[in-house]
């Protein structure tokens, strides 16, 4: 059984874990707006944002190394644009592009690492995000494990039949075959899930359970985040 590390992180009990998901989502939004509007020349501000994130990660008890490693996964994508900007002669803007994408990834990881999926999707729902989008997020998250395990079993079966001895062309052909079969099986599974939902009275919409009340401590948390972000943005 595979366990997603972030899923395990999100089941913690730190003060940050206990905050209302809506407050954390609002704080993330504020952080992203402030970060994206920071001038490339304000390098001290970027350092300030990083300090804020590290403090939050520390408060949540999340491993800094694990967070940095996962946030760095966005760098190959932003690096393409950063390199183009570098070649056009604006090295400071190139650097800020990479910094902004890395810090954004880190902030988003902090949210999902301190809030179970149910919490932040419920927060999105309370913000009137289209239900279909939320359903897609939930199902992808739920069945990613099942599909990944199925893919691994198929890969093992191929290895058992000597797939590692083949040429590179053969490997590509095998990978294409696996993807095709995986797609067909996912399609069948989707059909099965829909049947199971209908069998339990599904009529096209998820009936939500009662929302968690927004407490004053959640408001204090949000305004602290807001003040911290603005202080870094204005003072540094």
């Amino acid at each position, binding site marked *: *059984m595979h*366990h997603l590390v972030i*899923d395990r992180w999100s*089941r913690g009990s730190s003060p940050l874990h206990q905050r209302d998901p809506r407050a954390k989502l609002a704080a993330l939004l504020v952080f992203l707006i402030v970060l994206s509007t920071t001038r490339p020349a304000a390098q001290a501000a970027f350092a300030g944002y990083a300090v804020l994130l590290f403090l939050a990660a520390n408060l949540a008890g999340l491993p800094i190394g694990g967070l940095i490693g996962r946030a760095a996964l966005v760098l190959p994508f932003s690096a393409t644009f950063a390199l183009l900007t570098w070649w056009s002669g604006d090295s400071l803007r190139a650097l800020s592009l990479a910094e902004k994408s890395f810090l954004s990834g880190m902030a988003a990881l902090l949210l999902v690492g301190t809030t*179970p*999926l*149910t919490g932040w*999707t419920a927060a999105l729902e309370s913000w009137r995000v289209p239900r279909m989008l939320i359903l897609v997020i*939930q*199902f992808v*998250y*739920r*069945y990613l*494990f*099942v599909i990944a395990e199925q893919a691994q079993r198929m890969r093992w079966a191929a290895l058992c039949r000597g797939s590692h001895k083949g040429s590179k062309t053969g490997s590509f052909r095998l990978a294409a075959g696996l993807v095709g079969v995986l797609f067909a099986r996912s399609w069948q*599974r989707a059909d*099965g*899930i829909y*049947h*199971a*939902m*209908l*069998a*339990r*009275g*599904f*009529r096209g919409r*998820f*009936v*939500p*359970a*009662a929302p968690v009340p927004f407490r004053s401590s959640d408001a204090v948390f949000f305004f602290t985040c807001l003040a911290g972000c603005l202080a870094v943005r204005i003072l540094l």
Partner: protein
Amino acid sequence: MPRRPHIAVSRAIQIQGLRYRYPDGTQALDGIDFHLDAGESVALFGANGSGKTTFVLHLNGLLRGEGAIEICGLPLADATLEQIRSKVGVVFQDSDEQLFMPTVLEDVAFGPLNLGLSPDDALTRARTVLKRVGMAHALERAPYHLSAGEKKRVAIAGVLAMDPEILVLDEPTTFLDPPTRRDLLTLLRSLPQSKVVVTHDANLARALTTRAVFFDQGKIAGEGEVIEVIQRFHWEYS
């Protein structure tokens, strides 16, 4: 075969002349006549592809073929579909297809919420049922973190939470190890609902049901007491 004395009992399921053809032309069911008395449990045997699963998908209108289907006296039709789905609980073979909500508690509450219960009542009912199937410790766990046996218990809880009169179990012991099978059997025997059990497992059928129906190429090839059907169709390894 000794005839059972005729007793006036209410019918949980009454089916006449059920036919179903898949869009690719395969005739999956070809004139099925079937009945299940209230409180009775019946096993469905048959080779892979003989039509058993297609048949049970008709019991709460997931598939709609030709023929007459009555569930607890209600004819299966668009107007009665909602009522019938609350009376027939289907536990699917693959629990991963049945457990689609992010946590165990939410998954079990899914059905009651669809039935129109308030969130508080639905969650209370879900907790009660999870306790009954021995999964009260896993309320906030994600379904993909459970073992195969635990998933099956939660899947059964999800169906029991809708308070059905008939339980349909499609290969309930698939993927389960012997101790888990034993525990599941104990749980299923304690449930008072009428049961339709699709299975290849002769031991399970003997322990859980009193009557068996044998499917062959979309038709009922024979029916009777479980042991008699097993012997007649050689439905055991040895």
